[in-house]
């Protein structure tokens, strides 16, 4: 029987559906567990723009206070800004209220360490042990701390961004930029940031009220309004953020979406031309990155899926990594902060346009052409691993097999990857090839094989 749960507890934090699984009590338990894990102290609490944020945030505050922590509220804030702030504030850690790109009815928590990073595998395990054991360090009233709130939590992040980028070079070009914040947390910083880079900005969905004028995942089918805006205003480029502003999609000056895979490719080409060094990406990121790193003669390291896995590998390179990220529009520039950051991505692309003197469509044309297709089927982790075992047997000796995360098989000039999602009860299927038709063919063949395997089993 297919069990689909509305609550996911994973390395990416907690996500659930408001009014179903995501109750005040559950949220308070997680905050108590995290406060206990961190052993008290100041803990920064921020949120994306979801309307349920107020319910979730108050549950978190209550849980943190009960275990003697001092919550420091910063309100609605992009998650990369939040991570930078947590590190600079010298807090014990942070809790960010978000369900990333999930639809409106979802919300959740992401747990941030003292360094402003997501918890790694081991930290997550330790923390979840405390949650499951339910032994929280409740303190008596005399030891309660007084909650605080801080304004302008984006300031340290903005400062880092502006000192990294050649603002003079970008400003001179007076770019016209269309920005779609998806009514997410990015809206509190994006217009200001672009203005500081001397861009003329046309903002849409720029009120951070969680109304989500469109699905907050920056994939081509969700950003038609932005494409239209680029055309109508004759903008040089269009940018689309997701609800917590860690991912970015790009629209060229003709109003055509590049596909979120292109964001990291463009950003990487620019960074490597300035500062060649190792690149760290996950298993599902386009093989165009293999071509790019080869042309710059720098190593390419692939990791398991999940932002923290990429970040951990970047940190393991001890400062040598030039750039990292994920194909979903998540650009990580360790010099700013080891986290996915849509602002960094915007800055890099604008700087690339300014220094090269090329339009975005010209830059796009220079990227090796591959077509990546993402599909999914409903299924549990258990079912996913059954499928993986069967498929692995079938493709033995037919391609280069990686079991680092699910199953990835690399062929001559194409590959496919099957793995269970960390955040939703689904199995993801990803394939990439030189042409769209071929990638499509690979996915539909894979789906046929899967239904064959399932039929045989039952």
């Amino acid at each position, binding site marked *: 029987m297919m069990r689909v749960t509305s609550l996911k507890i994973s390395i990416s934090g907690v996500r659930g559906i*408001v009014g179903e699984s995501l109750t*005040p*009590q559950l949220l*308070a338990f997680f905050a108590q567990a995290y406060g206990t894990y961190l052993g008290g102290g100041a803990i920064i609490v921020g949120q994306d723009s979801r309307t349920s944020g107020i319910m979730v945030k108050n549950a978190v505050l209550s849980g943190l206070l009960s275990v003697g922590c001092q919550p420091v509220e910063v309100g609605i804030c992009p998650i990369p800004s939040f991570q930078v702030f947590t590190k600079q504030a010298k807090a014990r850690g942070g809790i960010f209220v978000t369900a990333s790109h999930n639809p409106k*009815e979802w919300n959740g928590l992401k747990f941030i360490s003292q360094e402003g990073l997501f918890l790694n595998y081991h930290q997550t395990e330790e923390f979840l042990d405390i949650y499951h054991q339910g032994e929280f360090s409740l303190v008596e009233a005399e030891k*309660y701390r*007084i909650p605080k709130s801080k304004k302008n939590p984006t300031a340290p992040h903005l400062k880092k961004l502006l000192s990294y980028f050649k603002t003079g070079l970008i400003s001179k070009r007076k770019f016209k930029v269309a920005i779609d914040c998806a009514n997410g947390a990015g809206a509190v910083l994006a217009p200001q940031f672009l203005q500081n880079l001397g861009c003329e900005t046309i903002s849409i969905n720029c009120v951070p009220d969680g109304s989500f004028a469109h699905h907050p995942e920056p994939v081509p089918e969700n950003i038609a309004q932005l494409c239209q805006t680029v055309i109508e205003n004759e903008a040089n480029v269009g940018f689309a953020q997701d609800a917590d502003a860690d991912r970015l999609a790009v629209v060229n000056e003709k109003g055509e979406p590049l596909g979120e895979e292109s964001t990291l490719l463009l950003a990487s080409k620019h960074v490597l031309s300035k500062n060649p060094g190792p690149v760290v990406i996950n298993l599902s990121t386009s093989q165009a990155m293999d071509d790019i790193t080869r042309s710059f003669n720098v190593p390419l390291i692939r990791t398991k899926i999940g932002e923290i896995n990429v970040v951990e590998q970047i940190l393991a390179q001890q400062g040598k990594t030039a750039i990292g990220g994920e194909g979903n529009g998540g650009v990580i520039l360790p010099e700013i902060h080891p986290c996915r950051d849509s602002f960094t991505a915007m800055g890099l692309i604008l700087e690339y346009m300014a220094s090269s003197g090329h339009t975005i469509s010209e830059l796009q044309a220079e990227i090796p052409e591959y077509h990546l297709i993402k599909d999914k089927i409903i299924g549990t982790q258990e079912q996913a691993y059954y499928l993986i075992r069967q498929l692995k047997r079938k493709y033995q000796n037919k391609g280069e097999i990686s079991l680092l995360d699910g199953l990835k098989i690399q062929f001559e000039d194409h590959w496919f990857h099957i793995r269970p999602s960390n955040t939703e009860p689904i199995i993801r299927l990803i394939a990439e090839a030189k042409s769209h038709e071929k990638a499509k063919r690979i996915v539909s063949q894979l789906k046929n094989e899967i239904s064959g395997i399932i039929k045989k089993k039952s």
Partner: protein
Amino acid sequence: MKLLKIGISGIRGIVGETITPELVMNFACAFGTYLDSKRVLIARDTRISGPMLHSACLSALISSGCEVLDLGICPAPILQYMVKRLKAKGAISISAGHNDIKWNALTFINQEGTYLSTFQGEEVLDIYHLEKYHKASWGRLGKLESIDNYQDIYFKNLGKFLDVEAIKKSELKIVIDPCNGAGAKIIDSFCKSLQTELVPINNEQNGYFPHDPEPRPRNAQQVASIIKAVKADVGFLLNSDASRVSLVSENGETLSEEYTLPLIANYYSKKKPGPIITNHSSSRMIEDVARETNCPVIKTKVGQSYVIQSMINEEGVIAGEGSGGIAIAEFQPAFDGFLAMGLILETIARRKKKISQLIQDLPKYHIVKEKIYCPPTKIHSVVNEVKKVYRDRKIDSSDGIKVEEKSGWVQVRTSATEPMIRIISEDKSKERAQQRAEEVMQFISPLVK
């Protein structure tokens, strides 16, 4: 033994032991469900654990779909007054009143602005026990709004109710010690509205209680020590939610909290005669005062909920308890420290008498209040055992056991808020009052060991 009291009008316990975010959320969810996801008010006193309970309630009420109007730090009587004015279906007051800083509590208030009645409270408890909490979907979550202009409305109406002209003319000077509780700072508005000069003590909303927030002589030393020096006419102590008051005379005499009710009744029932409601533990003074004006005295179990319900049902004019909580039906059905202070000022002004003289006018009794810890599992049987001491006497069992004598009485009952047995003894003679209390204490002590 963990201390938690779940009663009809709310929950009370020790923070970090029994008062946890989960328990608070469960009760707030139950109350939100009971209110059918309608509008609800919330306020807290200044206790440092307050923000924890406050956030837990906000989250739970929003999740149950209630529209929440947040009054922030606000005295309970003002919160209760605002319920009707803001057309709310109910309210939650976060305060443990007179208990020390270790404690906190939720009190549930109905749409009339009074503590939940037995029937209403039981309904909330049923929802809590069944855990049938309404969970609103994301689009139907409650909205949250902060309200801050309510003080003016309250004091404007209090000013209309009192004889402000007389108070103003008397040019009174008063000392108030709100114990850094919810009354702090708000006493400034109170005095301004009555044009009375204020000498405040412990007037910060910081939740650090310089003494137990219980208005009674043993906590009145600070007020007593300055009252003569500043030449004030009267001194007041408030509990942490400003529902109860005790007095200090102009000579610096710390007055028992038992005086507050008879003092006010002695003035107000002459202005407006009618039934006076009190509990079985309050001083006999009130009966003597009522006799003068021929007002009936009706007695209930101890607790604001019972006393106020009785005031509503019996069409009482005044209700109050010996602990210093007073309500006047014409103003609002809630114990109200500001109203009590205001009426005492009005009495001083209209009678043109010093507070010490007004006390002289009251009959003299000596009251002894003792309490002894008893495990909750046997508390009622221990109280019942005490009947053996009074084998041949007439015993009133309306609230614990009470034995009346010509010159006084003694009552033994369970505390509504703690696992304690309370012994209250009153007599014209101090020795007799003490002797009766000791007799009971000696009998109980071996039983609770």
